[in-house]
């Protein structure tokens, strides 16, 4: 049986931990050893049940996004997350290399973990990308812009790309490893599990064969039923730092809707304002299977759970809190399957948007029409296929050899001497 490490280096949403945990549980159930090496350790407490044998801190930059107002490409994000200088990146890369050589995974599953991938490539460890698309860029040089609502000068993309690549190659040189010809090669993998469909891909359409479908679960979490009553059924999955939290609570509490809300660490005063006989407020993720069939709108930030529950034909109301989610929100809007709200939106605006999605039948019709485009998809089947492919790869020799050394010397050994 294999040793499988799930790495989550960038991106600050609960969805990363949850998605890794789902695949990890299946692999562990088949006898594999699993480690999580995550950027945010507090998320572990909110997993329905943590599937990892061991948990580690991912080597990440302590300061992120410094001096970057509006990233336009993944290269911009990388420069803000440790790829600012060879010195800084070498430290982070060294942390990953040291850990990989100690823990000795047979396979690294990267959830938006470029430096983990780079370390795995230095050592020749099998590796796969697993994510909704944003962290798995098309392998272009320079890395393409994801920002689409304002012009991005090509020279800006090239400049950021060159900056990040110089850090990569300067860091690799410190390990005696030959330079990469292009930044996109950092993401080289044995398989890309693009957990979305083209309509919602952050980078637009890619070859269809590359899509594995959204990653979310309907069979995990606290068993929850819709409260009795006649009101519309509103599911809510948001973080407590949602800018419009008080307005959202005001809208929900002032309506006749039935509500099932997962808002981790929501302050007791706010819980008290929201909770009632017809409104459930959960500290833990709720099992979505029993909730989705009757759900009239799903309220979220636009992460995995949005992309996932859309596949159940549920229309969406999206509160994007960062650009990746904003891209998803705009695509949901383009599909006619939901609406999205600005951070400064008022209670009246939220109420109006929610009413439109709930009472204008086109949103539910479009959501169902979108889901019908992928009749073979189910969340469990998507997970099973990912898990099966990981096992196939484990049974094969690694597809990528360790990166060549500058001096022609043997590659870095995978275990410490």
């Amino acid at each position: 049986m294999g040793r499988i490490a799930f790495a989550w280096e960038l991106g600050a949403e609960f969805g990363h931990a949850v998605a890794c945990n789902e695949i990890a549980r299946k692999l562990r159930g088949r006898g594999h050893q699993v480690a999580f090496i995550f950027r945010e350790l507090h998320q572990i407490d909110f997993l329905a049940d943590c599937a990892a044998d061991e948990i580690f801190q991912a080597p990440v930059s302590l300061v992120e996004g410094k001096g970057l107002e509006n990233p336009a490409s993944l290269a911009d994000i990388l420069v803000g997350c440790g790829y600012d200088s060879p010195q800084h990146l070498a430290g982070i890369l060294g942390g990953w290399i040291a850990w990989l050589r100690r823990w000795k995974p047979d396979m690294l599953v990267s959830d938006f973990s470029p430096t983990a991938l780079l370390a795995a490539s230095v050592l020749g460890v099998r590796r796969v990308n697993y994510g909704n698309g944003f962290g798995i860029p098309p392998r272009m040089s320079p890395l393409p812009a994801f920002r689409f609502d304002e012009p991005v000068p090509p020279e800006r993309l090239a400049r950021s790309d060159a900056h990040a690549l110089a850090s990569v190659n300067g860091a690799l040189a410190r390990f005696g490893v030959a330079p990469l010809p292009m930044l996109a090669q950092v993401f080289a993998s044995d398989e890309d599990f693009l957990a979305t469909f083209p309509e919602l891909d952050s980078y637009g359409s890619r070859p269809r064969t590359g899509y594995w479908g959204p990653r979310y679960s309907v069979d995990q979490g606290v068993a929850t039923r819709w409260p009795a009553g006649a009101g519309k059924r509103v599911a809510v999955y948001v973080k407590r730092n949602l800018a419009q939290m008080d307005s959202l609570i005001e809208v929900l509490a002032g309506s006749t809707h039935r509500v099932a809300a997962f808002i981790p660490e929501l302050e007791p005063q706010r819980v008290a304002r929201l909770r009632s006989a017809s409104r459930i407020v959960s500290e833990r993720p709720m099992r979505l299977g029993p909730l989705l069939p009757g759900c009239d709108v799903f309220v979220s930030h636009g992460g995995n759970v949005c992309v996932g529950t859309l596949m159940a034909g549920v229309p969406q109301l999206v509160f994007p809190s960062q650009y990746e989610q904003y891209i998803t929100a705009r695509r949901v809007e383009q599909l006619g399957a939901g609406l999205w709200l600005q951070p400064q939106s008022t209670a009246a605006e939220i109420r109006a948007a929610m009413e439109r999605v709930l009472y204008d039948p086109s949103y539910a019709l479009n959501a169902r029409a979108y889901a019908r485009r992928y009749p073979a998809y189910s969340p469990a089947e998507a997970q099973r296929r990912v898990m099966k492919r990981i096992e196939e790869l484990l049974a094969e020799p690694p597809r990528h050899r360790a990166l060549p050394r500058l001096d022609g010397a043997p590659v870095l050994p995978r275990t410490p001497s």
Partner: protein
Amino acid sequence: MARILCAWEYGADLGHVRRLVPVAEALRDLGHEVSIAFRDSAHLEAARSRGFDAYVAPLLRIPPFVNPAPANFSDVLLNIGFADLHSISGALRAWRSLLELLGTQLIVADYAPTAMVAGRLAGTRMVTIGTGFALPPPTDPLPALRPWAPLEEGVLRAHDDRLVRTIREAIGPAGAGRAPVRARDIFAADAHLLCTFPELDPFAPRDTGEYVGPQGDASSGEDLRWQGTAAHRIFAYLKPRNERFDAVVAALHALDAECIVAAPGLGHERASALSGGGVRVVSAPVNLDPLLAEASLCITHAGPGVAARALAAAVPMALLPQHLEQFLIARRIEQSGAASVVRPDTRQPDFHAWLASLLADASLREGARRVAEAHRGHSFGEATRRAAERISQVALA
């Protein structure tokens, strides 16, 4: 020989890296297998490039709201993430995995409270190392950080209780037997090494702790020399972003003295613009010892590193502490008679008059001479080796 993990979590200055990496090297020279865990990724390469496996220490979420004037050290820890049950719970799991993966037998903790709680739970031997601030005296409750502004014991105990309650809840019933019961338990270790002089220790005099003295190599910076024959030579080591920086430099220009101002990060252009007459401003770290050996006055923020060098060189100090730790150190030096302090919360003084009066103050010179005499023969280089030997002793006991 032992497997040792040198951990640094909190405190922003380079001092932690400059202390811990040489200690790690000295431990390796003694035959131990040493790894590093730093919270700040920016400094990992300083350890890795010296041949150590360097990991990122498990991170606590940075809390959105902090108390700008913490009452005691429990309050400090609550401010830096220890009020967050889920963060502590996750970080302790990650520390446990790392300690097991490395087979760690001893933790050297440099302001590394989460590592210490994890080490306590794992039954790992521990040695703390630092300049004193991160090691509060083991009283119950932990003492107030501002002894001149007394607080009721109940206030201090409330912070202790909240800290311990949160940590114990994060640990859960399985680890309850080893979980800290009082706040002071969090800091318990087999030895406490104070890499400073008692005159610089914010909590001196204290019962626990061994003074191995300040350590390190101060010669890595730019090598400058005094040039003129002015009656007074003033050396200033200041943060260029400090709000008093410009006023101090202006005052130096008006003094009849040769002045060297080291302001790392200032930028070469501004440094040359501020230089002229008897004042040289450089934007890089400088080699301290040759300058302090012939200086009449040292102006600094009372960071423990520079202050120790000035103290050993018998140079009186004009101190402009920026935050609580520096203020506590400054206050100690003032008590020893070797410094004058401008409190961070007071109005800007007339720096020219203040500095002129210090240059003329014979009792200050005498105070500085007396303290230096008490530490005559202290070797900054030897202190690292002594610390490593003491750690080694604990590891092999």
